[in-house]
């Protein structure tokens, strides 16, 4: 009851356009967003016998419907499944750039991009995963020794190296956008050959427009606009193709991850109000749903809930929504990936 009152109050504030002073940990859209019909597809993924997923940080599909899952095992591991959920192969076994998985995305040519926040490296694999086509960033030399997330102010950001990068996206021209990350707080734009073009944000965290506090995910729409999950600020910031600020969406909760659909003429934005790590008291009441939105920020509906058992969500870390009516997601604290079928929007 208490929870209901809180969200009703928050929704009321929102309706009154009460300004930006709201606590953003609860999704203010929760009370007003309609529930979307959805169906879980239980036990869709058939993992190899005797082997296990770990924290499933990344999930992405290619144009053929193959599914790639990037997770944390004894080091980062990248598994490919076919469209029926059957295991196909492991990609990047013992690869130098795999330490601590964070994101996998598939570009318009079906090349597979893996973002590793332990190696500070982003790798482009060929569509069959057999070849490395491009690397962005640089894995710190072994000889440098262990460097934890720096204490005190972050060192200045560099154009061609990352500090725990989190995600990658592409515009229709093939330009590359990198969210970077846990110790830098910026988004960087490169041309398709990897040359630095622009950035927004820097090494220091901030709360203002064009500042970030843990840019945790990003996606790019067909117009080249960039949607950044500004996690600790509980908002999504939208930028134009030159990384100039356009808008913020602050009503959909914790801002962990976003996804933009690509099949069909109409693009939708999915965002996850992921329940925070640790499942603190009361968090499941305020977090857990995934929101379906228009690109302009209009909330179309919500579905799902936090939960230890499938089909509940345990810290959704990444979604694939190539087809806006079929959603795949990977979760940190359940070590699982799930498939959902959604009711189409009219």
């Amino acid at each position, binding site marked *: 009851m208490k929870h209901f009152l809180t969200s009703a109050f928050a929704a009321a504030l929102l309706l009154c356009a009460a300004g930006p002073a709201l606590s953003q940990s609860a999704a203010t859209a929760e009370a007003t967003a309609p529930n979307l019909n959805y169906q879980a597809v239980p036990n869709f993924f058939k993992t190899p016998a005797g082997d296990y997923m770990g924290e499933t940080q990344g999930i992405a599909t290619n144009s053929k419907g193959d599914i790639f899952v990037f997770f944390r095992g004894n*080091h980062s591991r990248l598994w490919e499944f076919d469209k029926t959920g059957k295991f196909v192969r*492991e990609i*990047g*076994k*013992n*690869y*130098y*750039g*795999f*330490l601590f998985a964070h994101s996998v995305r598939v570009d318009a040519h079906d090349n597979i991009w893996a973002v590793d926040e332990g190696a500070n490296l982003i790798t482009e694999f060929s569509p069959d995963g*057999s*070849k*490395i086509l*491009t*690397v962005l960033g*640089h*894995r710190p*030399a*072994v*000889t*440098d*020794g*262990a*460097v934890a997330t720096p204490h005190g102010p972050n060192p200045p950001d*560099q*154009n*061609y*190296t990352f500090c725990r990068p989190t995600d990658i996206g592409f515009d229709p021209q093939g330009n590359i956008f990198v969210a970077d990350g846990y110790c830098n707080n910026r988004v960087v734009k490169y041309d398709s*050959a*990897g*040359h*630095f073009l622009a950035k927004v944000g820097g090494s220091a965290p901030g709360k203002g427009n064009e500042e970030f506090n843990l840019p945790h995910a990003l996606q790019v729409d067909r117009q080249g606009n960039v949607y950044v999950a500004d996690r600790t600020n509980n908002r999504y910031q939208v930028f134009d193709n030159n990384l100039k600020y356009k808008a913020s969406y602050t009503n959909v909760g914790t801002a962990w991850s976003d996804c933009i659909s690509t099949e069909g003429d109409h693009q939708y934005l999915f965002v996850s109000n992921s329940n925070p790590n640790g499942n603190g008291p009361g968090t499941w009441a305020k977090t857990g749903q995934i929101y379906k939105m228009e690109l302009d920020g209009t909330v179309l509906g919500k579905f799902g809930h936090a939960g230890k058992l499938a089909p509940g969500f345990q810290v959704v870390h990444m979604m694939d929504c190539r087809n806006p009516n079929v959603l795949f997601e990977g979760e940190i604290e359940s070590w699982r990936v799930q498939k959902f079928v959604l009711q189409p929007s009219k």
Partner: protein
Amino acid sequence: MKRIIPALLAATLLAGLPAAAQDLGFTATQPLQMPKDVYFGEVAGVATNSKGDIFVYQRSGQPTMSLGGSRSFAHSGTQLLEFDPSGKFVREIGKDLYGFLVAQQVRIDPSDNIWVVDSYSGMIIKFDPTGSRVLMLLGRKPESIDVPEPPPRAPRGNALPGAGAQQDLFDAAADVAWDAQGNIFVADGIGVNTRIAKFTPDGVFVKSWGSKGSDQGQFSAAHSVQLDAAGNVYVADTGNHRIQVFDNDGNFKSSITGVGDPAALCMTKGPHQYLFSSNSNPVDNLDSGGEIYKLELSGSVAGKFGHVGKRPGEFGTVNQVDCRNPSTLYVAEIGNYRVQKLALR
């Protein structure tokens, strides 16, 4: 300045253009075919033997610290791979070898023995031509490795910083080369020590020279070493933007400048020798540099080619150049995780 003028004059005479090196055209391919489930990491070294077989020494796998009692032990993380002249994978050499930690360089001597330089274990390892036996070692891997490394010990006696101890213990060995008599020259290298150490063909320490600094005979880093047929020693003094040339006993002869910041050297064979030198970009800079120079031994620029970048035919932190055939080079790239074969026009 005094040193630059002769080189400039020579270049001018040679190319007929003032200070503008001829741009050599080339085509680039990537012929090496990796076996299933093996990936290129930071490719530090590439070299060919007299049969055209290609050896790749790369940072791959997962460098690992094992915690044991109060000490931590480092192992693996580096591979030596052999390919046939067509690029087909033949074998992995030295799998899980004790001295393999951080690949730095692979060189093939005139008898086709395979020498690798591992910068973190500080070892020079000589294999027979088949790679099946270890023939000789220089340096010793530290028994345990602390992360981060403790600060370096102060040099003993009157030794200058970077001069190293007069023995075959290396700090971060970078390269190895030989003279016509088989004497061994180690660039030691890219860590605390910045010196060249000379050994007899049997591995007996003869002498070393160099220390940290920018004066003649000093190095910012001794990143690469090659010798000409007359026994002169060419050292890529990365950071001081020069190649320093010494006689066989380490007496300073000249400096070659105007070639960017040399990081990888390769001396061709035959009656007319050329020295290739790569102005390799640092890993955090993709906006300038990356070109490779073809030099006369006088230091004049016979030509240059290439530039920094990630696309095929561009260079990302070239760490070794193989020039057994002076018109067909192999380049190992730390930044781009690949080996490219270059056909120079």
